[in-house]
C-alpha cells in the first residue's frame, strides 16, 4: 500500500517497545532519584518556567518511562534551574541534577 504520510494514530502514541532500558539505567546511574518519583506533580505546581511555558518535570519523567525521551528533553529546555521543585518534592528528589542529567543523557545534540 502506498504511504501518503497520513495516519490515524497521533505521534504521541505510547510504544513501550521503544523503551531504551540501557539509556534509562545510564540515567539512573548518574541520578538514582529518577526511580523514586511518584508523579505527584508538586514540581509542576510551583515551576517558575511552567507559568509561561508548557514545561513539567513530572511529565518529562513520565515521557522517559513512556519511551518518548525527545519530548522530555524538549520540555526541560525551558527550565531555569531555580530549584523550587527541589524544595517542594515530597520524595526529596534532587530535581536540578535530575533535569541536567536527563538533558545530558538523552540530548541528541
Amino acid at each position: 500500500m502506498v504511504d501518503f504520510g497520513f495516519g490515524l494514530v497521533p505521534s504521541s502514541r505510547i510504544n513501550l517497545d521503544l523503551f531504551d532500558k540501557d539509556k534509562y539505567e545510564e540515567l539512573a546511574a548518574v541520578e538514582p532519584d529518577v526511580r523514586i518519583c511518584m508523579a505527584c506533580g508538586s514540581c509542576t505546581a510551583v515551576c517558575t518556567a511552567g507559568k509561561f511555558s508548557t514545561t513539567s518535570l513530572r511529565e518529562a519523567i513520565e515521557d522517559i518511562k513512556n519511551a518518548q525521551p525527545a519530548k522530555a528533553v524538549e520540555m526541560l529546555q525551558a527550565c531555569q534551574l531555580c530549584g523550587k521543585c527541589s524544595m517542594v518534592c515530597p520524595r526529596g528528589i534532587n530535581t536540578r541534577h535530575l533535569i541536567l542529567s536527563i538533558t545530558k543523557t538523552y540530548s541528541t545534540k
Partner: protein
Amino acid sequence: MTPLFHLLAVQAADPEVIDRIPSGYSHFVIPFTIGITFMLCWIGVGCIRLLAAIPQSDRLKFWKSLFLPKTIIKNLKDLFGDCLLHVKIWQRKPLLGYMHSAIAFGWFMLIVLGHIEVALFVPARLNVTRGGLFYPIFYRYFVWMNPGHTTLRGSFFFFLMDFFLLYVLSGIALAMFKRFRSIVLGMRHTTKPSLADRVALYSLWMIFPLRLLAESFTADLSGGSFLTVGVNHFWHLLFGDKLWFTPCWWAYSICLGLFFAAMPFSRYMHILTEVLWILLRNAGIQPHHPRKGVAEAEIYACSSCGLCLDACPMNVQKKNLKYSSVYFIRFLRRHNEKKINAIADKCLMCDKCHALCPVGVDAPALRRAQRATVNNSLPYDYSYLPSACAGQLSEQKVLYFAGCMTHLTPRIIKAVDRVFKAAGVEYAFADRDGGICCGRPLMLAGKTEAASKVIEANKKLIVESGCDTLVLSCPICYKIFKDEYHLEGIKVVHYTQFINDLIASGKLKVEKIDEKIVYHDPCELGRGCGVYYEPRAALGQAGTLVKASKEYDESVCCGGSLGSLTLDTRDRARISESSLEILLAEDPETIVTACPLCLKTFSEAVSNSRLPRKNVAVKDFAEVFCR
C-alpha cells in the same frame, strides 16, 4: 691548614673575612645547584606559558597594574602579609600562624641576610659566573673569619643569622609535631600528602637541622653567634679538636637539591607561585577556564594546607572530605577529569574555603568554571521570556523583587509588606504574580550563557519600571543583581539594609522586647556580598542579640544551598543539624535569618532535630519588625 696562613700573609690589609677557598667552589654544591637550576627553569617556562595563555586584554591589564601606585602598595602589603608573615593564618590560629611564618619569613630572612653578608664582605662572589647561585647559600663554608678583626657589623650579622635559624627551627619543630597531633595547632583534619609532597616535606624537615649541623661544624673557622658557636663547642667536647665537616655540608646540599627538585611536583611550589597569583589577583583578572591561564596560577598557588577541610560544611561527615577544595585543586592540577567533575558538582558554593584561604584561592569560582565546561553547552529554550517580563511603568520609586524562593515562603512577602506599610514606604511589587528566576542558580550550575538570557530579560523589566531603588529579600538574587546586572542609576539593596536604613532614619519604629535572638549569616549575603553589619544593627534594636559559635565569614551553610548539584537530602540534613547546633550555642529563643532557603531549611531542621531544644522559633528578618 696551610693555604689559610699563606693567604693571611698575602692580604696585608687584614680584612674581616677571607676567602678560605680561593676558587669559591667545592664539589658538594653540585646537588643543590642541579636542584635549584631545574626548579628555576621549570618556573620560568611555566610563567611564560601561563602569561601566554591569558587573553591579550588581561595581559595588558596585568602589566599596567604593576605600575599603578595603588596596586603596587596593595601588592607589597599582600606579598608581605600573605606570603611571608601569613597574617590571615595568625588571625585565625596563632600557633599555626607562628609555624608558617617561622618557616616562610625565617627562611626568607636567612636568604636575604646571607646575600647581604656576601655583598658586604666578598661582593665579587655575587656574580653568577663566580658562583653567585650557590656561594651565598653556602657562604659559611667558603670563608674564614679573621679572629683578630671581628667588628660589630660582623657580629651583628652572625647574631641575626643564628636568630633566624633558630626561628625557622622552631617552626620546623612545630611542623613535625603537627604531623602527629594537628589538633593542638587548631586543625582537625589535615591534607593527605602525595608522594612528591612527602619527598619535599621530609627534605624540608631535614634542611634546617642539617644547616645548623653544617654551620656549627665550621663555626670555629667561619664564625657564628650564640647558636652555632655554642653547638660548635659541644661538638669539640664530643669529637675532640678536629672536626670533619665536609659530610655535613654534602648532606645539607643534597637535602636542598632534593627539595628543589621535588618542589614543582609538590605542594611547596606555592612558595613561589603564590607571588604570581597575588599579582594576578590584585590586577583583577578573572579565570575564564578551570585549568588554563589565571586558573593555573591559582591551582599552583594552593599550598594544600588543608584549612579548607575544617571550614567545609560538608565535612561534618568524614566521607565527604574528598570533596574539599584542596582535593579539587589537586585533581585539577593532575588533569583527573572524572574526579574533577564529581567534586565540582558536590560543592554547596558557600564560599567559606575562599574566604578563609590564606592566599585567597577562589576555589568556588574554579568549580563554577569547571561546571560550565560540562553544562554551558546543554540546550535551552527561553523563547517565552519576552512575554514573561513585559515591563510596566510604575509611579513608585521603590521596587520590590521577591524572587522564586520567596514565593515559596510567602510569610516573607507578607512581613515585608507589613514593614513597608508601617514605615510608609510606597512600593511596587515586581513579581507579584510570579516572575522569572534571577539567573544565579543557572550561573551556579555553570549554565552561564542561559543565565545571561535570564539576566537580560529581568534587567529590561526593572529598567522599564522607572524605579530608583530595588529591594530584594533573597540573598541569591541580591548577589547576582549586584554583581552581574549593572543597573546604572538604580540602587540595589537587600531588605536587611533597607530596613536598617528605615530604622536609622526613624521611619520605622521598633520596640525592643526581651528576646534572645541569634542571627544566621546566609552564605550569599555574608561572604557573597559582605553584608554583616546591617542585619545585626537592626536586630540589636528589636531584641538581645546573642552570638553563634561561628559567625560572620566563619558562619556555616544551612545545608539548603542551591549551589550543590549532587549532594543528597540526607547529607544536607546532617549539615543543617550541625549548623543548628552552632546557632544554638548561647541558648537563643529565636533564630533569625535573611534568606528564604535558610528559613525553610532551619524550620525543618528544628522540628526534625535530635537536639533537646525544639521550642526555638525560626523567623525571617522582616518578621522581627512586624510583631
